[in-house]
């Protein structure tokens, strides 16, 4: 049996005296695209931060490709295999090109390769025209695309996306959604996506997990989870998903 891409065992995390994660155990296989759903404050972001080794946990352990993350060295090596796109774009000062190159720079990627990969990533997200712009002069939609390009330029094995398309206008949402969907399939990237969007779950993800008050209530294929939703939130989500699929199947959208 091959090792799981990620294996979290009994993760618990406290922040400011509040339990934001309670004994979460979860496995993610290679090429899985896992949706995390749950109300605001359910612990989706905290779980992603714990799984990405960005925030220390109070209890539990994390195994990546079967190896335990036990010290600073293994942690850094793991963080260099992943990418995370936060809800806010969080760009650094400097040009768009410099921003997209940041991750490669930190890995001491040779200049020529950096340039190639940055160009490629800018192209993928349709922002080649912005390359020389200062990052702080961008619109929110442009900044979001830069943050996605920055993540994919690192060619991550695993990517964490925290509500990647919220607060974007519909046409842009559509474009980025299709692009992301293509990229995840063609590159075989394992992904964990926190989302409130049924369509993202149904079209992008092969597994979904429901969270509530820091606990993981259930994991399975979207069909399994939505057939017997573990809480009110996921039940509401299931009803909404039902409508969406009916619409998708019954009246194919243009």
């Amino acid at each position, binding site marked *: 049996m091959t090792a799981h891409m990620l294996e979290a065992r009994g993760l618990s995390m406290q922040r400011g005296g509040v339990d934001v994660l309670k004994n979460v155990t979860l496995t993610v296989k290679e090429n899985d695209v896992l949706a995390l759903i749950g109300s605001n404050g359910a612990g989706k972001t905290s779980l992603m931060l714990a799984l990405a080794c960005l925030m220390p946990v109070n209890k539990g352990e994390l195994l990546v490709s079967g190896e335990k993350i036990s010290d600073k060295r293994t942690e850094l090596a793991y963080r260099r295999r992943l990418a995370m796109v936060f809800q806010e774009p969080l760009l650094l000062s400097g040009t768009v090109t410099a921003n997209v190159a940041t991750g490669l720079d*930190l890995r001491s990627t040779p200049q020529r390769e950096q340039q190639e990969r940055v160009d490629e990533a800018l192209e993928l997200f349709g922002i080649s025209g912005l390359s020389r712009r200062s990052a702080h002069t961008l619109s929110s939609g442009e900044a979001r695309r830069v943050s996605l390009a920055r993540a994919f330029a690192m060619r991550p094995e695993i990517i964490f996306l925290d509500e990647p398309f919220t607060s974007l206008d519909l046409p842009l949402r559509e474009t980025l959604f299709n692009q992301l969907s293509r990229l995840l399939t063609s590159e075989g990237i394992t992904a964990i996506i926190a989302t409130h969007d049924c369509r993202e779950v149904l079209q992008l993800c092969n597994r979904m997990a429901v969270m509530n008050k820091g606990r993981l209530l259930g994991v399975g294929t979207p069909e399994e989870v939505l057939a017997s939703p573990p809480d009110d939130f996921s039940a509401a989500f299931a009803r909404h998903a039902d409508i969406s699929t009916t619409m998708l199947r019954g009246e194919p959208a243009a």
Partner: protein
Amino acid sequence: MELILEGICEALRLLLKGDSEVFAVTWLSIKISGMATLLSLVIGISIGTILALADFRGKRLMVALVNTGMGLPPVVVGLFVTIFLWRSGPFGHFELLYTPAAMIIAQGIIATPIVTGISLAAIQSLPANLRLQIMALGASRTQMIILLVREARLPLLAAVMAGFGGVISEVGASIMVGGNIKGQTRVLTTATVMETGKGNFDTAIALSVILLLLIFLINLILTMIQQKRRAR
């Protein structure tokens, strides 16, 4: 009134003909305060960044202490540095009292809390998740700190200016630990005190004009930085 006018005329004459003593005093001021600021930057930015990023019990108390330190009375600093460097004091055998080194130490102690406080505020004003995002880009802890400091570089430049402005115009500590020795520890402020005491208002005014010009220059740079930030 005549006294002031005469003084200003004499001051301009001294400045224009490039009086060697006035020049030496000015240059020493810039050197001593520059070194003290440099020292305070190394210590202040490090402590400020650590305080901003670390999470520990008593952090608030530490921040309160730093903020109190920003208003540290120079005379008090002068007193304690003098005691420590006194011949029979703990560091007396270094024989540093009444040397430029003693002044650099005293001014460094005055500037460090200022730089620490501004650095702390600068790093804390960055978005909370920026640190996590930088780590998610694959940064080691050192790389993360370098990137954060780079992001806060404009307010940090303000820290440089505030620190330098604070110590170059300070007189209490400088006179106590430096002793205003001609050619060795005589700086703009201590020379002004002495010349005024002797009734040499023209020289005192000339020295003050130079000090004002220096401070004006600092504030000009500061304002330009702030305006640039606002324009972004």
